[in-house]
């Protein structure tokens, strides 16, 4: 946070063990005697007009998450750690930035420009980097030097909890170097294996696996711009370029794209991500680019370019073996007009959850019998051939249109099981001329419980000819004394 010398300093407070303490403060507040873990009443006594805000952990976490997303410009392996730190596995990435020195400098400069104060450290192991960033001064620990580098650091640098650090301190162990060369078995017996695990992780005797926030893409293509780009046309041109680059990689592996995303890294730290999905494996740069065009067309108002994007990356998140691809020589058909292309285009623009088809379930309850599911999401998980559908019938037993949920109607009917003689639905009164039924559909007691009611369905026709599918909810006197009536569907 940049200092605001003419206004009172800002501090963030949190409640720890029933005491309100300061957990973060502006840099220049230290001159006035404010420090972390100071109680708020002490701080107020020193600086009466201290501006205090309660800590918002969710907002902190969200900010750290967006920072992690931004850090993917350096490496795909970024992991969150605790409330305020990030791990990045940069193996094989630093040479792209001209060496470790300039890599660290680049991170620090860019984050400082965004208004963060950061402490960074690059080391052979995650544990050593954490220790040095928190408790040391070095920014880069040379290869194989990490054990010596952390030996002078306090034991808290090993990511141990405070109780363990205190009990180690009581027997005289203050620094990492004190325990590094001790016999391991007595140490484990007295302080637990966790201590040794942390020591081994820091010294590299034990591998530590960081869990990255995002799945690592199977393939990726990246373009960096010297000048940040802002215009939609430039973005489209960039996507087309990246799509062209990635085709060669796909061909070498004999793959086609199913899901891919474009990440746009804004200079001020925002990351915008657009993803598209193809129903069939795709290996055509123009069609991939066209899908992103639809995606952009849908949200070009929501896509805030700010001061521009300086990195654009195309990630292939899912790729399947590419089959076919032989074109018809005689009849040239434009692939862009095919059914698969249409579904992809609609899905890219509207979202794949808006392009739907039926999936079926083997049940008699009408509203549970089918669902509308995204076309691209099904992938043959439910086999529609298992469910028996009725054949064509001149007098149908099932309505053509089913209401989204049964609507209550006021019906006059004889007890116990006659069809209604008249009813009112959506304020209109209908006199029934013909009816057929009941068709009893019992409840699914294994899902709804034993107390749930049966339905007696009637297909009725009123005097004008309108035909409805109604049901009485509950059997008279056996399940309920006042059965309700519902409208459930309309026949054509």
């Amino acid at each position, binding site marked *: 946070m940049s200092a605001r010398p003419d206004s009172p300093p800002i501090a963030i407070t949190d409640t720890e063990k029933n005491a309100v303490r300061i957990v973060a403060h502006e840099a220049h507040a230290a001159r006035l005697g404010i420090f972390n873990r100071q109680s708020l009443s002490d701080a107020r006594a020193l600086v009466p007009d201290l501006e205090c805000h309660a800590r918002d952990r969710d907002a902190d976490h969200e900010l750290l998450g967006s920072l992690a997303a931004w850090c993917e410009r350096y490496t795909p392996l970024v992991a969150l750690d605790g409330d305020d730190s990030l791990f990045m596995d940069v193996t094989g990435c630093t040479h792209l930035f001209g060496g470790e020195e300039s890599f660290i400098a680049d991170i620090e400069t860019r984050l400082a420009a965004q208004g963060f104060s950061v402490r960074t450290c690059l080391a052979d192991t995650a544990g050593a980097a954490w220790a040095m960033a928190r408790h040391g001064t070095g920014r880069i620990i040379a290869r194989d030097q990490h054990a010596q580098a952390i030996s002078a650091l306090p034991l808290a640098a090993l990511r141990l909890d405070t109780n363990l650090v205190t009990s180690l301190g009581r027997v005289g162990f203050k620094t990492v170097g004190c325990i590094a060369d001790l016999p391991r078995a007595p140490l484990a017996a007295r302080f637990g294996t966790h201590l040794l695990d942390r020591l081994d992780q820091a010294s590299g005797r034990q591998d530590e696996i960081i869990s990255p926030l995002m799945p690592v893409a199977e393939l990726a293509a990246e373009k960096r711009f010297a000048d940040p780009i802002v215009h939609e046309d430039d973005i489209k041109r960039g996507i087309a370029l990246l799509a062209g680059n990635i085709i060669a990689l796909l061909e070498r592996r004999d793959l086609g794209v199913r899901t891919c995303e474009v990440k746009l890294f804004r200079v001020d730290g925002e990351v915008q991500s657009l993803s598209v999905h193809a129903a069939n494996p795709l290996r055509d740069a123009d069609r991939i680019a066209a899908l992103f065009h639809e995606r952009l067309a849908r949200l070009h108002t929501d896509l805030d370019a700010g001061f521009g994007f300086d990195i654009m990356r195309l990630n292939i998140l899912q790729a399947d073996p590419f089959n076919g691809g032989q074109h018809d020589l005689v009849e040239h058909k434009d692939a862009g007009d*095919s059914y698969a292309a249409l579904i992809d285009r609609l899905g890219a623009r509207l979202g794949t959850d808006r392009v739907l*088809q039926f999936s079926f379930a083997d049940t008699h309850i009408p509203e549970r019998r089918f669902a509308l599911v995204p076309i691209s999401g099904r992938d043959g998980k439910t086999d529609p051939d298992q469910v028996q559908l009725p054949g064509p019938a*001149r007098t149908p037993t099932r309505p*053509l249109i089913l209401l989204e949920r049964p609507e209550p109607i006021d019906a006059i009917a004889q007890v116990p099981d006659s069809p209604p003689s008249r009813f009112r639905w959506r304020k*209109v009164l209908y006199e029934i001329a013909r*009816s057929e039924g009941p068709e009893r559909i019992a409840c699914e007691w294994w899902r709804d419980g034993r107390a749930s009611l049966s339905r007696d369905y009637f*297909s009725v*026709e009123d005097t004008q000819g309108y035909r409805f599918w109604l049901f009485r909810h509950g059997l008279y006197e056996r399940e309920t004394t006042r059965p309700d009536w519902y409208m459930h569907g309309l*026949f054509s």
Partner: protein
Amino acid sequence: MAAIARTRNADAAKSLVQDLCPGPGDSAHETGAAFDIPALDQHLNGGMCSNALHEVRCSLARDFAGAAGFALGLAAQFGKRDANRILWVIDPAASVDSGLPFPDGLSEHGIDPKRMIFVRPITLQDALWSADQAAKCGDLSAVIFQVKGNPKPFDMTATRRLMLRARESGVLVCVLRQSGAEEASAAATRWHVEIMPSEPGPDFEHGPGQARHVHTLERNRHGRTGQWTLTWNPEKRAFEDGISKTQTTHTVRRIHAPADRPDRPAEMGQVVDLERAS
């Protein structure tokens, strides 16, 4: 106008001109299929053209199932032959209270529900765009665009564009207008669907029989309008003449009872035109 800007060659431009001023030379573009109902086919110059835009409308929400049945019937009987998928675009305003097609009902209606695709966009603009994209796709048999009322963005230009797309791709495009009024459009035909009491079947005469509807041809590019009673035969996937031998064929448009009040009072007398005193 986007429709003109997108026509690529002279043929398309010519067809646009013909679309604007329909004439006798128009039918060269059309692939028609007959209803096999002589009176109807005569009105339509031989049958429904499958590569065109048609409109089916109903005036009341409760007529929607009948109109949907007619639109699906048209799609099944006159849709593109070498394709079998039907794409249904739902206008967001229409999806509030109209319900959804029920797979078992579709199957009994003679439509394979596994071959249906539904598009449910959030805005009407997206719905129009989806219908436009779908009408371009030659792998579909028919596109049904369900719309509620007469929304302003779905105007003459939009319908004319759909008509052009249908003609280029050979897909039957059907606008299914729920509770809408008559409106000028570029559609080749516009039908108004009304319900009619069913004819009881031979095996169960107290139950509902086979559905019949009164179809009014309100707009016809070949000029003549008319009214027919049709039934849908799901086994043959074809419309049949629905006039029974026993009942009268006269159909009158009913005045509907008020929805939320008691029925209207009976007429109290006759209004006569009196001569002015002065």
